[in-house]
């Protein structure tokens, strides 16, 4: 089975800025992938390239072993829900289902109908009159009912209130589990992804900072709290991702083996949120690998 997404040196630059830089990734199949990063990090660019909406400036990409949007067959294998979940404002919910049925040979009418019924979306309602949450659900229904092998969603819950957000993600996970679909889901909030993703990509400032199986990543990262010292005083086979120093104390965020490094420190695992934030912080401050806090007294 080919990788969900394989990219080599992938880049996209606009006249004045780099949207994606030297992105090399290989996402194994059968995952729910969280693509996380701050706004403007390049998440949308990566997803748009992956579904063939954008052509990269440099590098190569394959999705499910083929060029994105290579033909009708490849298009049928990939579902994509764009940011802000666009739908045709003057077409009704029923029209959208008919659109899906007419344009997708693998269309699962029963599934689509069941989802719409379950969501209690009025069939005759124009999509323009639906609430943001309902529209997102309609867009998701269209993408799910074409029965793709890979479903990509760009910030699908960004514009939804917390309740709708939770409902959307629950429905997404249900459909994915039922149909054995792989998913790539982007968000700028770790909390959206925490419950649903088993693979994580952190994208900051147009570059991939971290990518891997969530469980592995969590097992490999530690926070070490010890008396103040420099990085070189840390012994052992660890790689310092980020360090914070206060007057007496140093905190190191390290990546190592699955066994915690031993020494005169307290080692503890990071939460997913802390892990992501650590990499974001590092990426936001290139050149430095640490930050020093001065305490009240020292001032």
């Amino acid at each position, binding site marked *: 089975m080919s990788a969900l997404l394989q990219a080599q040196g992938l880049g996209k630059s606009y006249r004045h800025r780099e949207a994606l830089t030297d992105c090399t990734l290989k996402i194994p199949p059968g995952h729910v992938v969280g693509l996380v990063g701050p706004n403007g990090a390049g998440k949308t660019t990566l997803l748009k390239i992956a579904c063939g909406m954008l*052509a990269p400036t440099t590098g190569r990409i394959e999705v499910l072993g083929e060029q994105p949007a290579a033909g009708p067959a490849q*298009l049928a294998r990939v579902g994509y829900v764009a*940011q802000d979940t666009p739908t045709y404002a003057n077409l009704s919910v029923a029209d959208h289902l008919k*659109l899906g049925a*007419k344009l997708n040979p*693998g269309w699962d009418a029963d599934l689509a109908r069941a989802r719409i019924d379950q969501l209690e979306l009025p069939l005759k309602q124009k999509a323009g009159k639906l609430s943001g949450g309902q529209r997102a659900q309609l867009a998701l229904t*269209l993408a799910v009912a074409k029965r793709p092998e890979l479903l990509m969603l760009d910030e699908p819950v960004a514009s939804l209130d917390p309740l709708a957000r939770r409902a959307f993600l629950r429905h997404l996970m249900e459909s994915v589990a039922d149909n054995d679909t792989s998913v790539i889901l982007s968000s700028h909030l770790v909390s959206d992804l925490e419950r649903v993703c088993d693979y994580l990509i952190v994208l900051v400032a147009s570059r991939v900072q971290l990518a891997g199986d969530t469980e592995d990543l969590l097992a490999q990262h530690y926070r070490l709290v010890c008396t103040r010292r420099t990085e070189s005083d840390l012994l052992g086979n660890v790689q310092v991702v980020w360090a914070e120093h206060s007057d007496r104390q140093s905190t190191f965020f390290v990546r190592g083996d699955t066994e915690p490094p031993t020494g005169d420190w307290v080692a503890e695992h990071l939460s997913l949120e802390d892990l992501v934030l650590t990499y974001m912080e590092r990426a936001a401050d290139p050149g430095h690998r640490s930050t020093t806090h001065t305490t009240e007294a020292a001032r």
Partner: protein
Amino acid sequence: MIWLTARQFRAQALAAVAVLAAAALYFLITGLQMHHTYTADLISCTPQNDCDGVLRQLPETYNAAFHLLQLLVLAAPALVGIFWGAPLVAREIETGTNQLAWNQSVTRTRWLAVKLTAVAAASIAAAGLLSYLMTWWARPLDAINGNRFDALTFATRDIVPLGYAAFAFALGTLAGLILRRTIPAMAVTLAVFIGIQILVPTAIRPNLLSSTTVTFPVNQATASQANGVYMGRGGAEVYIAGLPIPQGAWTVSAPPIKDSAGHIVAASAHLNCFPGPGPGAGPGAVKAGGPDFAQIGACLANYDLHETITYQPASHYWPLQWYETGMFVALAGLLSCACFWWIRRRQN
């Protein structure tokens, strides 16, 4: 894909049908009236052999309608380009729905092909219907006016409006695809269409087929056939009007009279030949034809002057219609190819 195109185009199509139906009704009612009057006039005037006088009444009665309807038929392709072409893709890009459409199991090439074909066919059909009605409606007036090459008349009869519609629609679509916004695409479509409609009758149509040139020596015989002499630029140029060229021909150029060396002749150089108000009377001073004018001709004959007229004969009407339609259809084809090239360019 055909279903989606039809569903999305439904509202615009209904609006167009309503407009076309209203126009057709107007054409039919006034047209039948006019045709009836024309037939009756012809019957009444033929025995007395004064048809020129009787029939001149008809174009005057329908003067306003004639010009307004011609403008409507000429505007139709522009409207098609603006309201059907420009939003075709631009509107989808603006609302982001192209991201929905392009991620169904249909390539965007096919998506564009179906949309372009279906709406282009509707555009051509609408322009064709209007042109047919206009040509039928204005037949008596065109026969009386005898000027089928008038810029507005030629552009609103027979088959050229079909070519314009195809062109304007493809132009609007491409503008929308490149600019990605509906309103600017509409503006660009209108501007380019107007530019083309000015450029074609003045610079391109006269040269589509080789024209005929006749040279008249300025003498008494020529002058007695003409119906006037006009002075231009305060007497720096002299024109002879109404020289006999074949019936229904299109005068492409009638420059001022020249001498044997090919230089433009000023009226002031031969003042002795011009009785009455001289060049001092200002630009456009006119000396009527008739016996006086024959005398001017006889007087000027001593100086070896000539008037050269270039025209397209009446027999070139249909070849020019076909050439121009073909040219616009070819342009529409090129613009459509550009649309496909552009939409695929963004793909890997």
